[in-house]
């Protein structure tokens, strides 16, 4: 006979119970109550709904068709008022239904701090779709929002509201954000990233009252600080929703007490999810909830199964910031810390070691290796052999090839890949063997990466390892055939392991050739001199001929020579010297370039040092028309002559060129300064462009007029020339430190995002640090290579020997 199962609450846990039950063809007749007027959806994804990245329809996990197909009687939007255990019935607002088995999945309720004004309109919690919609509606009106609580939910709410244009302040009672998941340093980075997104954060803030007459108007803190607010979001915590269970006389501590089969003190009544307490534990993350759901489903069909509490890792994405924590990361006697910081990238890693065993880990900014660290914690692996390189993750251990895929290949079959759904590598491999050959198919058949999505990359790597060449990894390519590492990998290695010579890179990154090739060597030479200006000596033999001989090679093996004309300004004396040089060295072609200077084309290699010496004597230096570096700063005449000019664009262009010249960059770098928005210097199709306006200077970046044509995008508007120069130095240094070799700014910008670049430049400390590092590098490279080569290296431009002369004798 069909048994009747009544489920109270349609959350993520109960949804999963029903899936398992129907998969097992358990033959239950199910009635599903939900106080919300809708069925099961993915609550983890409410944040993307709030921020506008997703819609409700995209996060629905079970739709009306699914309920109908499985014969579920849906009673959505109906509160359950009572459970009668004697009669075995559940009573809702619209009537009573009998059960054989009952499942309580009432989840949790937001904790409301008991202060005056907590019931005012405009004070909301953040728990379900209705709350989310209320926030979206409030944000549409603009104004100020105060979020009380700096935990995950509060921060997601804050970021979402900021994204929707509200002025947001987060109040957090503790000393740093997310103190249960993060240590102080990681909390600081998170705070900084959020502040850069425009969210104001006040820690150690204790709310004493919410103010307002008919609607919320403000929040009062203990220290009498008053904050204006049109919306207050209370996100200070949750507590298990146990009211029905308590009323029914079930045993309830903090949550509804259950045994390992998820049965309450009444064995026909089960409970699952955030409302339960098991062995003193409460549950908030989705992974244990799914474990519980499986146990409930098994118990309902008399399959033996028992719930156990597992070591838990938290891997979260808070508003685009990756963070991870696991185990115990408190300081303590006998505990050692290994810390790695990369301030420029905002990366922080801390490992806590006790007696040669990793017991805790906190990662911020780059959580790629978190599964591996979590495995070490769970398995209590002795790490003494790899202690020195442990912090760099699995790719850097011993003989393991430096290939992220190899690290995934080395994972055991039972290694957990998807923490949310408890999916192991084995299940993914089995799904692939059964025909799931892309991410979508693996997700559909195993649910791996289907909940929070942070393991997507890992799932792709399992696909790549399992399918080999049949799987096209949608990821970056290796630099060249000499290595399997990408440009990004190698740059990270150069920085993190302080590799300061080319042989060190080849050795540590496992180059497959003895000394690289024409593709990787110029890239490595640039990365090394950009990251270690004082330690690394530029290697001319790793440079393309143009940069080795400081002139542009032409199709017939001759060269072109372009002296610098600062800001496009020249003099009669300079022009005479150029004309004399053109005559003296029989230059066949003299051309005006697009960068406002003069190109002497067709110079023989052996004449180069001599023509340079002549041009040097007239006060001219290399124009670097051949370099992946600063080329020209094109200008218009600005206020000097133009009746429309708003600023001294020529003067600023000259200043910029004099400060930037000689610097090496990932690709060529062209600038222009226009004196007014008529933009005669065409600044808006340059890598970096400045357009002068009455109130100051608009600095924009990412233009191009080559194979791609791009208009620049505004980076910042500033009031003074000094600020323009600082901003441009900083953004140039940021580009030098982070971009892939041969990416122009617009390509780099497409990868890292203009927003990220803005954040770095807008932060005064970061900007100044970038300027300082740029100046440090320029102390080496801001010099004329022509003068140097004409004086010291002239001989190397001559033939090694001339046997033709001998033959003629």
């Amino acid at each position, binding site marked *: 006979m069909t048994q009747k199962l009544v489920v109270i609450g349609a959350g993520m846990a109960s949804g999963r119970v029903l899936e398992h039950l129907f998969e097992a063809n358990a033959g239950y007749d199910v009635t599903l109550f939900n106080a919300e007027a809708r069925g099961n959806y993915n609550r983890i994804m409410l944040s993307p709904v709030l921020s506008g990245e997703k819609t409700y329809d995209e996060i629905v996990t079970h739709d009306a068709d699914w309920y109908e197909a499985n014969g579920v009687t849906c009673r959505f939007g109906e509160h359950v008022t009572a459970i009668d255990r004697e009669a075995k019935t559940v009573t809702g607002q619209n009537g009573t239904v009998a059960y054989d088995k009952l499942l309580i999945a009432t989840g949790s309720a937001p904790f409301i701090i008991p202060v005056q004004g907590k019931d005012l309109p405009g004070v909301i919690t953040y728990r379900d779709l209705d709350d989310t919609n209320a926030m979206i509606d409030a944000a549409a009106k603009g104004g100020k929002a105060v979020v009380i609580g700096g935990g995950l939910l509060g921060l997601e709410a804050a970021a979402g509201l900021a994204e929707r244009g509200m002025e947001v302040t987060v109040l957090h009672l503790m000393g740093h954000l997310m103190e249960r998941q993060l240590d102080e340093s990681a909390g600081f980075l998170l705070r900084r990233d959020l502040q850069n997104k425009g969210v104001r954060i006040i820690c150690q803030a204790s709310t004493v009252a919410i103010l307002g007459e008919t609607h919320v108007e403000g929040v009062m803190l203990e220290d009498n600080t008053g904050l204006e607010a049109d919306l207050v979001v209370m996100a200070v915590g949750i507590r298990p929703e146990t009211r029905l269970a308590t009323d029914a006389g079930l045993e309830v501590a903090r949550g509804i007490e259950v045994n390992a089969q998820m049965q309450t003190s009444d064995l026909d009544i089960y409970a699952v999810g955030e409302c339960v307490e098991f062995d003193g534990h409460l549950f908030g993350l989705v992974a244990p909830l799914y474990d519980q759901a499986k146990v409930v489903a098994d118990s309902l069909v008399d399959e033996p199964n028992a719930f156990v509490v597992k070591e838990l890792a938290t891997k979260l994405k808070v508003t685009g910031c990756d963070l991870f924590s696991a185990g115990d990361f408190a300081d303590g006697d006998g505990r050692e810390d290994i810390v790695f910081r990369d301030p420029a990238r905002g990366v922080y890693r801390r490992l806590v070691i006790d007696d040669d065993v990793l017991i805790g880990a906190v990662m911020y900014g780059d959580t790629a290796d978190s599964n591996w660290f979590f495995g070490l914690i769970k398995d209590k692996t002795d790490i003494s052999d790899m202690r020195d390189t442990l912090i760099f993750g699995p790719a850097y251990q011993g003989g393991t090839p430096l290939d992220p895929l190899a690290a995934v290949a080395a994972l055991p079959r039972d290694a957990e890949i998807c923490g949310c759904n408890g999916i192991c590598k084995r299940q993914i491999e089995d799904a692939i063997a059964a025909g799931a050959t892309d991410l979508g198919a693996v997700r559909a058949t195993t649910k791996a990466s289907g909940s929070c999505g942070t393991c997507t990359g890992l799932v792709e790597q399992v696909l790549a390892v399992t399918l080999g060449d049949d799987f096209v990894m949608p990821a970056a390519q290796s630099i060249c055939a000499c290595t399997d590492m990408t440009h990004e990998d190698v740059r990270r290695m150069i920085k993190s392991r302080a590799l300061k010579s080319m042989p060190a890179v080849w050795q540590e990154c496992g180059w497959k*050739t*003895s*000394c*690289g*090739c*024409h593709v990787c*060597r*110029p890239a490595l030479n640039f990365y090394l001199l950009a990251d270690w200006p004082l330690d690394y000596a530029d290697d*001319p*033999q*790793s*440079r*393309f*001929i143009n940069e*080795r*001989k400081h002139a542009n*090679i032409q*199709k017939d*093996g001759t060269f072109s020579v372009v002296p610098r004309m600062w800001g496009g300004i020249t003099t009669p004396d300079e022009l005479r010297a150029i004309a004399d040089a053109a005559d003296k060295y029989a230059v066949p072609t003299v051309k005006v370039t697009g960068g406002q200077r003069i190109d002497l084309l067709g110079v023989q*290699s052996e004449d180069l040092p001599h023509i340079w010496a002549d041009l040097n004597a007239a006060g001219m230096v290399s124009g670097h028309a051949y370099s992946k570096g600063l080329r020209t700063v094109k200008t218009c005449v600005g206020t000097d002559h133009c009746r429309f000019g708003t600023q001294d664009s020529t003067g600023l262009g000259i200043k910029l060129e004099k400060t930037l010249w000689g610097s090496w960059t990932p690709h060529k770098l062209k600038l222009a300064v226009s004196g007014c928005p008529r933009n005669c210097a065409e600044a808006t199709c340059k890598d970096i462009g400045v357009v002068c306006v009455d109130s100051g200077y608009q600095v924009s970046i990412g233009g191009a007029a080559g194979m791609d044509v791009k208009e620049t995008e505004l980076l910042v508007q500033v009031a003074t020339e000094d600020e323009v120069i600082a901003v441009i130095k900083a953004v140039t240094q940021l580009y030098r430190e982070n971009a892939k070799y041969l990416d122009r700014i617009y390509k780099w910008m497409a990868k890292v995002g203009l927003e990220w670049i803005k954040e770095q430049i807008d932060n005064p400390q970061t900007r100044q640090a970038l300027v300082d590092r740029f100046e440090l590098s320029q102390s080496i490279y801001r010099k004329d290579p022509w003068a140097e080569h004409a004086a010291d290296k002239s001989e*190397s431009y001559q*033939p*090694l*020997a*001339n*046997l*033709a*002369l001998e*033959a*003629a004798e």
Partner: protein
Amino acid sequence: MTNWIDIAALDDIPQRGARVVKTSDGCVAVFRTADDEVFALNNACPHKAGPLAEGIVHGKSVTCPLHNWVISLETGQAQGEDDGQVTTYPARIENRRILLDRSFLRAQAAA
């Protein structure tokens, strides 16, 4: 019959570098590898006659500066997809001096 002539000191060419020797029939590029081996090849890529002496030297190969053809220094053969051959000449090192075979250079020139 060989007729070795002393061209220059080994250190006149940087490691992973090249210089040219002018002959009555055009230029010969002399390469020095990272392992201090020397090779002499016609200084003209089989593709568009690019000056190989200006290329980047890696292993026992050079990449032409004009269109990135990779030429084996040992055989003069273009590598990979490309097809072509550069004339090679005997070259050796003695007491850190670079020696080329004059008779061979002349024979090539006469041929």
